[in-house]
């Protein structure tokens, strides 16, 4: 396989709190290939946004490695990091909070180019017009202020800013959650459009699983700081192997009254990340948990078909990790 664009190796982001250590990201390994869209899902507090911020190096990870195009950027200082910053850009959930309201849209989109010292004022103006066109706002938008735009249009400004430096990876942290349903599809289509014919890759973080199925090539599922399953999008939906993935899928409201379910769905709640269960972190809510699950934490093991799962009793006929380990031994 070619060298991945991004590789996380056992990445850890622990925070010290008054109640003890909070293991927001606790040893996550994954890769993103050039041109790939990797989706990341999980419930609030699972560490998906912290993971994004750590790999953006907005935090200094407390353990593990971040390799960007093969270069270890885990501990680089700001100055050494600057050339790498260009390669990875981010889109945020709330385009209003992410944009300085006193700058015109043109200034906002030109800002990353200025910071990186790219072009002259004039070439930047041309480039900004081109970028605004690319995101469907039109060059005229440059002289207006963000507040005169709707939420969907502001997100387009955020996207124009993010792609200004022609990054290799755009980290999208819940980019459509704050948008209206009729607008979400516009933004998702535009993001797909932007990566067509380029090697742009996305890390797409969301809790909207049905949207993710639509745009992601592969999907990773996080639970309490761990990656519990990662697989090609279709396989993850049709044959999830981790009981948590199965639970998540079954919880999505189905937009079809004929498929309505009336069971009580009492599946408990996520334990406190400050007081993690022993062994498998999901066992307190897992219908299949056994004594083994309380004793040993399952490792994430990649099976022959590229589907990786961290579970002692995986679903859908896959070989259990324990069996596989025994075979390997």
């Amino acid at each position: 396989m070619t060298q991945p664009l991004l590789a996380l190796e056992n990445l850890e982001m622990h925070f010290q709190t008054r109640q003890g250590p909070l293991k927001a990201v606790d040893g996550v390994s994954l890769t993103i290939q050039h041109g790939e869209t990797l989706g990341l899902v999980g419930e609030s507090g699972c560490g998906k946004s912290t993971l994004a911020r750590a790999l953006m190096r907005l935090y200094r990870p407390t353990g593990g490695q971040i390799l960007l195009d093969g270069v270890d950027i885990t501990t680089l200082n700001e100055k050494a990091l600057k050339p790498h910053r260009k390669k990875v850009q981010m889109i945020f959930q709330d385009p209003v909070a992410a944009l300085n309201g006193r700058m015109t849209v043109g200034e906002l989109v030109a800002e990353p180019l200025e910071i990186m010292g790219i072009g002259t004022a004039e070439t930047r103006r041309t480039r900004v017009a081109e970028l605004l066109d690319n995101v469907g706002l039109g060059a005229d938008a440059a002289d207006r202020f963000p507040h005169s735009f709707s939420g969907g249009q502001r997100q387009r400004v955020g996207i124009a800013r993010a792609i200004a430096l022609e990054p290799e990876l755009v980290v999208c942290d819940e980019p459509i959650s704050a948008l209206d349903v009729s607008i979400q599809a516009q933004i998702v289509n535009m993001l797909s459009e932007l990566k067509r014919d380029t090697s742009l890759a996305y890390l797409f973080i969301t809790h909207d699983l049905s949207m993710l199925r639509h745009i992601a090539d592969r999907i990773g599922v996080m639970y309490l700081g761990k990656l519990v399953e990662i697989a090609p999008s279709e396989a993850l939906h049709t044959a999830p192997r981790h009981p948590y993935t199965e639970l998540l899928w079954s919880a999505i409201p189905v937009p079809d009254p004929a498929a309505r379910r009336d069971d009580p769905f009492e599946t408990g709640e996520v334990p406190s990340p400050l007081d993690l269960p022993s062994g498998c972190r999901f066992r307190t809510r897992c219908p299949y948990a056994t004594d083994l699950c309380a004793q040993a934490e399952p490792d994430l093991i990649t099976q022959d078909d590229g589907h990786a799962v961290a579970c002692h009793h995986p679903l859908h006929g896959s070989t259990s990790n324990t069996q596989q380990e025994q075979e390997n031994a």
Partner: protein
Amino acid sequence: MTAPVLSLRDLRTEYRTDRGTVQAVRGIDLTLQRGEILGLVGESGSGKSVTCMSILKLLKRGGHITSGVAEFEGRDLLQLSERQLTAVRGEKIGVVFQDPMSALNPTMTVGRQIVEVLMQHRKISKKAARDRAVELFELVRIPSARTRIDSYPHEFSGGMRQRVMIAIALACDPDILIADEPTTALDVTIQRQILALLKELRDRLGMAIILVTHDLGVIAETADRVMVLYGGQVMEEALVADLFAAPCHPYTRGLLAAIPDPRQAGRPLSPVRGSPPDMRTPPPGCPFAPRCPQAMRICETPPPMFDATGNPALQAGQRARCWHADATAPAQIFETPS
């Protein structure tokens, strides 16, 4: 049909802001039957929340109800004094909001907050109120109800806090529960638990629920009947099964088409083009006309609600505010695109 528990006629509400007057609700009619779950679905600015808050006159600063009638138990809620309204709120009509944390008092145990509501509306002893509070906690399935009652709001998870809010709203056996985006801030697994709980409570207690949401999936899972709002007006109303099987209004159809279809994964989605209207200067006719793929010249004239009379495309009880649903219209109006 029996008399509705609540009937709203021609409700109009506006917000006066520094940047002009926002016409949030522009003539909404609504009837709520006993024991039914009525879904109000729409995007931000469609007027769904403002409609609910107008019923109890819980409007934010700058909000004014400019006309309308809200008939409940033979009285017009919109004409009641603040004192009379206080008796209705909480006692007869309970409310659950999106963000339970902002609706709970952080410095008071949740038990005390329920006891306070009970003692305000009922002549009961503190002991009896506390027993009732435990009962309510058990009703909404909060584990270890008897001890959890002495916890503070921050000691609960988001989902449990929403259960506390529901328990408070149910304290006085209301006839109506208004749930305004009750699961929007929650994770999907918790959302499904809360929706299942609302259905169960409706079945057991027989109250009517108005469920406000932007999520058609939530409507399909939970509501009996649904009203689709846009631009401060009802675009379409129908039984849930009919709305999903045969949506009539182009806006409803656009919303349904925008939902990602797992069978079409990887293909471009079908968005609704354009942006929602600025409700300070709403379009003169149909509010959806500027975005509507089927707009005609006549859409610049506000369409009335059309029902199934003479129109085989609509089911009994289904109504749409769209000129295309006018069964009596002369054919030539459909031939003049806008």
